[in-house]
């Protein structure tokens, strides 16, 4: 029963995806057909309708629309430029400085907005033309931007961990946020090494003008309000003032004041479009979550996760082998699927295997989010990859060659994160969150 169910599910799902059926409808259809095969149509209709609603009825998920709205306000809020200036201040003199700055900008901006696409657009949109002016290879610039745009999905705050928290049955969001920090920075750092080496080889050095103390102060001063958002959210959660959901609401109010009142980069008449866009983006994510919960029901009912767990533990009881298998599967999944559905579908399957091997759910959460973040920049399907290419006005083929050394660096980071639990668990441990 499990095997037949698995085959029907997987084949139908990928067939529908390939034919451009929206991801959420592909999930519902394949789940529904599987239910009907084993039970009755009435059962399938009832369960699908029920799970579509109850799957999104979650205290934790309330933070999703708020973080999306805050991200919208920030992306339109003139914040990217201020963060880039700050990064240039410190990194302006190193070889490949503009590329390294792009990476630091992605890390800071991604940290605030939590969206790889937003970072790729906002930071890459400014940096790629600058790099072209300074004689950088365009493909290299685009690759740098693409390779590091997703780090904000690991550096908190980030919706990916909120979704994982829901999928894993209530792992602490605060602990996950802290756990993502070091792996995110490691990803960015190893990519900086690549950019540095490339810059050195090709002689990309700027003879920067001498900085005056007042210019330095002004740049730092300008960036403080933007960076303060992270302090409010993370500090608010850590100090015990806010729950993560409340912190996300505070983020909206703060970003609104910053963008509309302080920077005046958004006008009130643009607000409606911004709100509607937020609603649409929220809807798309939530529908996928609802659809995935129909699918998890089917899988649980047919005993699929248990069967896969048993199968994997049957192959080997070697922790290293199993974790490598999980990584490979997730990387392949990530090349086809988006973050949210992949998290919701694969967490219940792999988490029991991982905990069986003595892995902490926090550590596993970081590992799965990192894998799927990598998926957003790998062909054939990668949102951040596509957006990064279009920002640079290049084809995927032009960027691929330059992405390779970055992929190598990111894979090294992934191996470290997988096999050195301390990278994920040390910080939340020190802060007493686990």
């Amino acid at each position, binding site marked *: 029963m499990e095997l037949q169910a698995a085959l029907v599910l997987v084949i139908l799902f990928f067939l529908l995806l390939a*034919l451009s059926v929206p991801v959420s409808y592909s999930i519902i259809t394949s789940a529904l057909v599987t239910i009907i095969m084993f039970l009755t149509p009435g059962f399938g209709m009832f369960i699908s*309708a*029920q799970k579509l609603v109850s799957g999104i009825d979650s205290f934790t998920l309330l933070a999703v629309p708020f973080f999306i709205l805050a991200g919208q306000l920030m992306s339109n809020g003139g914040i990217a430029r201020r963060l880039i200036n700050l990064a240039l201040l410190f990194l302006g003199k190193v070889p490949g400085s503009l590329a390294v700055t792009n990476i630091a900008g992605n890390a800071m901006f991604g940290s605030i907005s939590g969206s790889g696409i937003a970072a790729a657009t906002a930071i890459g949109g400014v940096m790629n033309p600058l790099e072209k002016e300074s004689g950088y290879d365009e493909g290299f610039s685009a690759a740098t931007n693409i390779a590091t745009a997703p780090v904000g999905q690991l550096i908190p705050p980030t919706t990916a961990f909120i979704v994982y928290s829901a999928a894993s049955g209530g792992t602490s969001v605060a602990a996950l946020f802290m756990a993502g920090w070091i792996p995110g920075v490691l990803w960015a750092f190893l990519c900086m090494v690549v950019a540095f080496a490339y810059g050195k080889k090709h002689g990309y050095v700027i003879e920067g003008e001498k900085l005056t103390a007042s210019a330095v102060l002004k740049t730092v001063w300008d960036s403080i309000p933007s960076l303060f958002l992270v302090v409010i959210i993370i500090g608010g959660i850590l100090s015990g003032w806010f729950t993560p959901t409340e912190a996300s609401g505070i983020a909206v109010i703060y970003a609104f004041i910053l963008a509309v009142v302080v920077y005046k980069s958004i006008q009130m008449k643009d607000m409606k479009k911004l709100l509607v866009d937020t609603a*649409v983006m*929220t809807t798309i994510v939530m529908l996928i979550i609802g659809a995935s919960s129909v699918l998890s029901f089917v899988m649980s009912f047919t005993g699929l996760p248990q069967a896969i767990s048993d199968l994997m533990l049957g192959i080997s009881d070697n922790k290293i082998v199993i974790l490598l298998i999980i990584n490979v599967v997730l990387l392949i999944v990530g090349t086809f699927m988006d973050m949210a559905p992949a998290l919701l579908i694969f967490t219940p399957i792999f988490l029991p295997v991982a905990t069986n091997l003595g892995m902490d759910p926090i550590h596993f959460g970081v590992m799965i989010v990192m894998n799927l973040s990598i998926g957003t920049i790998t062909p*054939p399907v990668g949102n951040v990859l596509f957006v990064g290419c279009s920002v640079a006005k290049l084809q995927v083929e032009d960027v691929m060659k330059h992405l390779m050394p970055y992929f190598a660096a990111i894979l090294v980071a992934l191996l470290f994160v997988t096999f050195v639990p301390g990278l994920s668990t040390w910080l939340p441990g020190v802060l007493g969150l686990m």
Partner: protein
Amino acid sequence: MKAINKILETVLALMVILMVLGCFWQIFTRFILGNPSKYTEEFLRYVLIWLTMLGVPFAYGRDEHISIQFITRTFQMKNLLVTKIAIEVLVLALSVFVMIAGGWMVTMNAAGQISPAMQIPMQFYYACVPISGLLMAAYSIERFIKFSKEIKEVK
């Protein structure tokens, strides 16, 4: 459909504002009044559910749901349109059987059930599904007609 679009757009924007205000109210009652509201959390969850269910057809009308194009992009125009029409048929079927009929089943099954905090009938909680299904069906039929016309022109 234009009128429906306009209405949905306004309703969705208002619901996002409502959520922000609700979250603010929760923080306010807890910090300033020292007496957390018992209803906000449930209220926010239910608004998010309705927001999602009304947003689904609206986003569909704007063709914003995530799909994968790299295979169908290589199709010839006529085959591409045939695929698109087939997708509309599938979406219409899902709207009718899952959202309208299934949604009606869960709504009826919830008769007599009340929500734990606000004490409102749970039929309200599920009613967004059949409503969403009706709107989805409308958008899907509109697109079906549009693609059918286009396919005639290709011939």
